[in-house]
């Protein structure tokens, strides 16, 4: 058993001295590294401003550096179990000429005689006489701390503070566009969104929309030239608020979209149906009642005349209902669509029911189609795969569950002309062997 007089005293002394020694070393390292890391953070802040990457980066750098330094310092300053090597190091620092180290070992070892006890007593007395604070004095490095603090503060200010814009100007970088979403006030942004939404939905009176847009244009002129341009375009389109104009506008859009393929986000069957509809609308324009040639030609065929207003309205309703089905069928089979929508020269009435063959009515039907499809188009356009829906089935489901009066049946691509069908996607090279193995499998 270790002697009572100095039981574990030396271990404590060695452990404490070692802790002081390591803490001193850790703080010395910290003093050397802190200004450098703060400088790196400041540099990152400047670069973030100049190169316009996220201002969170310098803060992250600063935070990570601070955390790392704090962690390292804490680990290095922790008290640890004293060992012979530690005791030897502390002994050498205190110039105890091996006495502390030797006594430290004897204290931990079992047994011991009078000589050992005497040795331990003397070692304890000598160790207590050592001024450990003077041996491992606290590190004083005011300049380094001040430099680190200044640099870190500058990095933080640059990252989160307002002077960034002025700094960017100072370094010759173009100012950030004022019309960016961040620059808009919340109230103005909400107002703009509401207005744009209502214009696109066609719910705004043309005069009111124009007045509001004028007002917004002036506002935006102060903020963002690009936005001003956009508003000017919207104002140009806004006067078309009448029903017929809306339909005309829609017709143009439908044609343009069909040509441009803008509705790529729509499912294929919807896309094709719309394209088909656009073609029919284009054809219907030519067969409007206002076109005497076409009407005459219709009369020439011996078809019935125009119905009364009520009958016409009723017929329109029925026509709309029937048109939905026709669109489906047309989408399913282009040949059939020709037959159903043909009328006129072919002498057949494409409409089911009592109205019979009425070529003059086809144009009105087309408008009704347009009206009926308009909402559907908007709703379908709003369904963006990957944004508010995840799968193709979701688009269809949402469309069918919406307010649309139209329904779409699933159409297999193979049912259409092969020339209009997209080629299947190429097999990735990485999977080609697997695919081949799958099909060539015995």
């Amino acid at each position, binding site marked *: 058993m270790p002697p009572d007089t100095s039981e574990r005293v030396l271990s404590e002394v060695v452990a404490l001295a070692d802790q002081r020694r390591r803490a001193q070393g850790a703080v010395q390292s910290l003093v050397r590294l802190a200004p450098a890391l703060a400088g790196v953070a400041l540099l990152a802040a400047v670069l973030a401003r100049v190169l316009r990457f996220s201002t969170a980066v310098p803060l992250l750098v600063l935070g990570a550096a601070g955390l790392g330094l704090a962690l390292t310092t804490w680990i290095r300053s922790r008290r640890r179990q004293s060992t*012979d*090597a530690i005791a*030897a*190091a502390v002994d050498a620092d205190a110039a105890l*000429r*091996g*006495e502390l*180290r*030797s*006594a430290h*070992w*004897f204290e931990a*070892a079992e047994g*011991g*005689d*009078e*000589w*050992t*006890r*005497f*040795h331990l*007593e*003397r*070692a304890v007395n000598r160790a207590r006489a050592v001024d450990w604070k003077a041996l491992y004095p606290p590190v004083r490095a005011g300049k380094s701390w001040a430099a680190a603090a200044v640099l870190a503060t500058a990095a933080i200010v640059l990252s989160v503070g307002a002077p960034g814009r002025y700094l960017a100007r100072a370094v010759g970088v173009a100012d950030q566009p004022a019309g960016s979403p961040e620059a808009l006030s919340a109230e103005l942004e909400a107002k703009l969104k509401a207005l744009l939404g209502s214009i696109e939905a066609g719910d705004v009176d043309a005069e009111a929309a124009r007045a509001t847009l004028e007002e917004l244009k002036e506002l935006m002129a102060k903020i963002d030239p690009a936005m001003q341009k956009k508003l000017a375009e919207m104002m140009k389109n806004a006067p078309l608020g009448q029903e017929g104009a809306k339909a005309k506008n829609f017709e143009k859009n439908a044609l343009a979209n069909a040509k441009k393929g803008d509705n790529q986000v729509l499912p294929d069957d919807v896309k094709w149906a719309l394209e088909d509809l656009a073609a029919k609308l284009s054809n219907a324009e030519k067969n409007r009642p206002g076109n005497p040639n076409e009407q005459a030609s219709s009369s020439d065929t011996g078809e019935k005349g125009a119905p009364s207003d009520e009958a016409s309205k009723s017929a329109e309703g029925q026509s709309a209902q029937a048109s939905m089905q026709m669109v489906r069928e047309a989408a399913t089979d282009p040949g059939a669509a020709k037959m159903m929508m043909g009328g006129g020269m072919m002498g057949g009435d494409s409409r089911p029911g009592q109205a019979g063959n009425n070529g003059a009515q086809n144009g009105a039907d087309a408008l009704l189609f347009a009206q009926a499809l308009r909402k559907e188009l908007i709703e379908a356009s709003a369904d963006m795969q990957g944004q508010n829906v995840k799968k193709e089935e979701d688009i269809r489901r949402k469309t069918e569950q919406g307010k649309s009066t139209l329904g779409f049946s699933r159409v297999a691509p193979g049912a259409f002309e092969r020339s209009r069908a997209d080629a299947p996607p190429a097999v990735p090279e990485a999977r080609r062997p697997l695919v081949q193995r799958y099909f060539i499998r015995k």
Partner: protein
Amino acid sequence: MTSAAVAQHIDLFRERFVRITKEVGRRIVGHEEIVNSTVTALLVGGHVLLEGIPGVGKTSLVHTLADVLHLKFSRIQFTPDLMPADIVGTNVVQEHAHGGMFFDFQPGPIFANVVLADEINRATPKTQSALLEAMQDISVSVGKTTYKLDQPFLVLATQNPLEMEGTYPLPEAQLDRFFFKLRVMYPPEEAMHQILDRTTQPGDNEVARVVDGTEILEMRQVARSVPIAKPVQGYAIRLTLGSHPESPYATPLVKRYVRYGASPRAAQALVLAGKVHALQRGNAFVAAEDIKAVALPALRHRVLLNFEGEAEQINPDTIVSELLAGTKSE
């Protein structure tokens, strides 16, 4: 024994040690280290090989030491025709007073407390080996009878490193039995002045007998009582092992020039001498510093050079110094 008694032992040891060295120093000038090491070897029961050119005071040192220690002293001048019996003694036929003959053992010069084996390398190996048993077992065997030697027993052998012609280098086994090998160098200029003043002018050069054999034996007990921590002992062991070329502790010079390293006797010598060195400093423990202080005389004659080392005349002291520098104490 209490702590106070331990402290008293330490103080007494130091006081006696200082007395011996100071008294020897009255006659021997400029060799404090040699005197300290010789007394150290005496206090742990070791033997010393003194190597130096003629005239530097080797024999005077041994004479003086014997005088100071109040011990029986004998001198053996080793020559090529010296026989073992000339050292250990022989049986002589004697005649009884009432008639009849008998063998009577006549002890040789080895039967003394301090034996000076002067120019030991001039005797044949057979004669040199006569010292082996005496040095190791403190006894001699003549015929069928073994005779114990008186304690303290100390052999101080000298050899001349220059005149190697007609000499018989000591075998490794005998070299290993010497606790220390001390190199006696020329004294410095100031010491030379003192030597001349003392030996060329009338005056009293007599030395006093400051300690006797009993006190020497007491000091030996005290020296062996000093505790040594395992890590420090480990350092002594690493030093010893490091002198072997195949050891992981071996230094580059050891690997290149050493054929055989030090034996476990070297580790014993390091620890025992370290204890005396610690007591000299007034410490009740052995530090790595104490081991380092005695490493050179304890290891230099135990490091045997290989052919390359001999051919390049490598000094073993260089190898030991590198070993000390290259071996960590913790």
